[in-house]
């Protein structure tokens, strides 16, 4: 489905977030094109309601019966009645509102997962996402029940890699091959097959490293090629092995937040103080490694701490010392 979205009087940062949100709609099979308002036909208007021109266009759009997402810093009663969104809303929130505007009848919250189901399911996302996006290896591993959590041999051109979620390891014949695989992880065209018993031992792949850090680095390298991770309530029962991903502290914060209980993924960027696209990359990687579990929609908990990083006391000082937070003034 193609959709024309017009932006009106958006500040630079707002425009960037709206553009990112529009791109993320591809996960819902909506090919959105964002351009400035010019009065021509469109499907949705995203306007700055704090701006005079923005309010003027909002009135026009409503008279025409167009869907509107109005952004405002002042969410008073009147504004809330007109479905305004906070001017600083995250990409995920904007995407949600835009989806609601484009699909007023079809935008539903995902149904709860039955108790005991732990594996992420393909579900609506696979049904709605363009096949090319799901062809990326992390997406297949994360969302397709046929592959999630399975030990697999993956091939792309001359590259071979054994991904072993059962061991938390990745094996290749050489280190250069492993680096090459990592750099091409988000490319389309990977083929996969499940491993037979004893196959890894017979294969002679001797270079063994941590699977979770490997997937994380690969996904971060190709994050622009992946859709935003679908919104869901999720949890980590085990910490991902991020020991060798020492330059990605964002992933530590995301893992720390998810290991404390089920969380709505839309709340993670604020909770972990991490950019939404980085959060999305972490979720793809953690899901692809078989660690991210889907929780019941109603089971999302309010974390014990308002932030993923300690705010006070010795551990807050240690967090600053080890580079988890900026030095306070």
């Amino acid at each position: 489905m193609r959709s024309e979205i017009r932006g009106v009087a958006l500040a630079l940062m707002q425009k960037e977030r709206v553009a990112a949100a529009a791109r993320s709609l591809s996960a819902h099979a909506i090919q959105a094109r964002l351009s400035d308002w010019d009065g021509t036909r469109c499907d949705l208007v995203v306007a700055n309601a704090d701006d005079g021109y923005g309010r003027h266009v909002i009135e026009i759009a409503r008279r025409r019966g167009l869907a509107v997402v109005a952004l405002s810093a002042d969410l008073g009663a009147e504004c809330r009645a007109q479905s305004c969104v906070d001017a600083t809303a995250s990409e995920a929130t904007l995407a949600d509102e835009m989806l609601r505007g484009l699909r007023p009848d079809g935008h539903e919250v995902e149904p709860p997962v039955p108790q005991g189901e732990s594996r992420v399911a393909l579900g609506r996302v696979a049904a709605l996402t363009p096949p090319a996006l799901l062809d990326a290896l992390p997406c297949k591993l994360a969302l397709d029940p046929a592959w999630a959590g399975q030990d697999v041999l993956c091939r792309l051109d001359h590259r071979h890699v054994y991904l072993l979620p059962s061991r938390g390891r990745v094996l290749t014949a050489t280190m250069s091959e492993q680096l090459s695989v990592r750099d091409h992880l988000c490319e389309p065209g990977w083929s996969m097959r499940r491993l037979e018993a004893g196959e890894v031992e017979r294969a002679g792949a001797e270079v063994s490293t941590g699977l979770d850090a490997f997937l994380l680095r690969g996904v971060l390298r190709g994050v622009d090629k992946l859709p935003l991770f679908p919104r869901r309530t999720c949890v980590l029962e085990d910490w991902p092995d991020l020991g060798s991903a020492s330059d990605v502290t964002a992933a530590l914060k995301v893992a720390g937040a998810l290991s404390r209980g089920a969380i709505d993924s839309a709340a993670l960027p604020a909770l972990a103080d991490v950019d939404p696209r980085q959060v999305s990359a972490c979720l793809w990687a953690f899901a692809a490694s078989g660690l991210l579990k889907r929780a019941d929609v109603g089971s999302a908990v309010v974390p014990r701490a308002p932030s993923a990083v300690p705010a006070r006391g010795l551990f807050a000082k240690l967090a600053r010392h080890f580079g988890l937070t900026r030095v306070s003034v």
Partner: protein
Amino acid sequence: MIRDAAAKLVLAGPVGAGKTAAIRAISDGEALSTEMPWSDPAQPEKTTTTVALDFANILLDDGTPVLVYGLPGQDHFAFMRPIILDGAAGAIVLLDGRDPEVAAHCAAWLHSVASIAPDAAIAVGITHTDLVSTFSLAPVRAAARCLGRPVPVFTLDARDREQARQLARALVLAAV
């Protein structure tokens, strides 16, 4: 008991896991080590071992000192564990991934640490995993899960300053 106003972090684990190297990596300045010559055909590249304790210092941005201790790994020094672990704010358990019994060691050390310092944040590091192509993290994770709270389990090269600090960061986040 080693207990004073300063905060305390402790590195624990069996011989040859890399505790001394990790302490040197995460601390400021020189670490005080009590190393003696060591010879073990099973670990030909290990030439020294800690016989009393390792000690180093971290100075936080407000001047707070954090004392970092490393426990000797040998069983006959087990009597030192309660002396050093008592009152620790955090403990890192370092294990040797080459050891086929690594998961059992993990369970034993976690139990030992948690029984002496029940309020301490805990993280687990496993070294030398790149040397064993058959290494599996799963049994170690299962052992860590028995503690009943989320425990980060990382593989790392303890000699790498950034990887050792990464484990320390996980310890901080596990404390929240």
